[in-house]
């Protein structure tokens, strides 16, 4: 079957004329280009020399592309008292542990809240929705007090622990797990599986799309965790903190700021692309025949 035949078949299935498919394709292509534009602009801006950065109106391409901005950024970052590799290590440690822990905690808690009936489960479910509506500004002071009472100030754990339990991830997983038919869980129970086994061998493998979405969100959030008001020791600070410091030195360092933006943008984008493929692959598997 050639591609044209496939196209005709799918058109017939959707009840669409040939022109309709072309129109939809064009519309999607234009929308997609629009979505890619910010990322493209970030990258193009980082390879422009300083004198080109402030041309108005901004150009969509660099006239004389250069990697000077990246060289300057690494030179700035290496001139710190703490070696640059230390920051990279800190950031990687925080990102990996937050992503892994958040996925484990969120999926286990979500399974319990969605599929186990116990007194107060309804109340906890609505508290989670309320927790999503909070402003992060409002809880700064309480967070600091809790941190200092737990002796977590100037402790690297202070970067990891607050992000491990995330209402957003919990809500995402809960909504998705609640769609799993009860019949499947009952079948597992009949076969003698305990709750833990049901969670990890039946429910979570079926939830790969949601889990991947959660991983993308968690990775993005964790990669941007800053030392903030809890960690003051230079050797525990993370990459975003130093990169923003390097970028915040005014107009003369605008090129460095652009390079820093690209440097911070790339890992989440790459991770997103890798995880995205997984999401589409696992959507094909389905659970049960009704």
């Amino acid at each position, binding site marked *: 079957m050639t591609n044209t035949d496939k196209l005709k078949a799918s058109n017939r299935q959707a009840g669409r004329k040939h022109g309709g498919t072309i129109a939809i394709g064009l519309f999607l292509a234009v929308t997609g280009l629009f979505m890619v534009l910010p990322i493209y602009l970030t990258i193009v801006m980082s390879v422009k020399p300083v004198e080109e950065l402030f041309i108005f109106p901004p150009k969509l391409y660099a006239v004389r592309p250069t990697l000077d901005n990246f060289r300057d950024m690494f030179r700035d970052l290496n001139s710190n008292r703490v070696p640059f590799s230390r920051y990279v290590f800190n950031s990687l440690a925080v990102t990996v542990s937050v992503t892994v822990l958040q996925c484990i905690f969120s999926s286990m808690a979500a399974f319990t809240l969605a599929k186990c009936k116990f007194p107060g489960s309804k109340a906890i479910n609505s508290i989670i*929705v*309320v927790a*999503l*509506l*909070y*402003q992060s*500004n*409002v809880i700064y002071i309480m967070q600091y007090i809790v941190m200092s009472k737990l002796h977590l100030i100037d402790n690297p754990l202070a970067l990891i622990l607050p992000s491990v339990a995330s209402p*957003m991830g919990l*809500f*995402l997983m809960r*909504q*998705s797990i*609640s*769609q799993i038919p009860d019949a499947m869980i009952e079948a597992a129970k009949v076969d003698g599986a305990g709750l833990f086994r049901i969670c990890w061998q039946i429910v979570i493998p079926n939830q790969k799309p949601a889990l991947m979405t959660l991983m993308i969100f968690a990775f993005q959030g964790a990669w941007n965790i800053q030392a903030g008001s809890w960690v003051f020791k230079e050797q525990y600070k993370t990459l975003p903190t130093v990169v923003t410091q390097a970028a915040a030195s005014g107009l003369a360092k605008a090129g460095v700021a652009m390079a820093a933006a690209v440097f911070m943008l790339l890992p989440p984008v790459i991770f997103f692309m890798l995880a995205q493929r997984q999401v589409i692959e696992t959507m094909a598997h389905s659970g049960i025949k009704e």
Partner: protein
Amino acid sequence: MGPQLMFAAVMQIVSSFTAGTVAQNLVGFPSTDYKAHTIMTHAYDYGWVRFEMGYASAICMVLFVAMYVCSRLISRLLGKYTD
């Protein structure tokens, strides 16, 4: 799709009620004649610039109640798709 729609709705409620960063980046903070002020920038102004924390907390409380009402309404609307 009900549960996923609910998730998307709640996340959108939060992000649209707390919008303000884009306007801040475009026209500055505070904007000329406070023309581009949103609730969020208003609360930020009173909380971290004028340090009238009580008033800022009240704004956040109102914002919170509004968001809660919205999310209840939407979950009522989506109720027939969720179990």
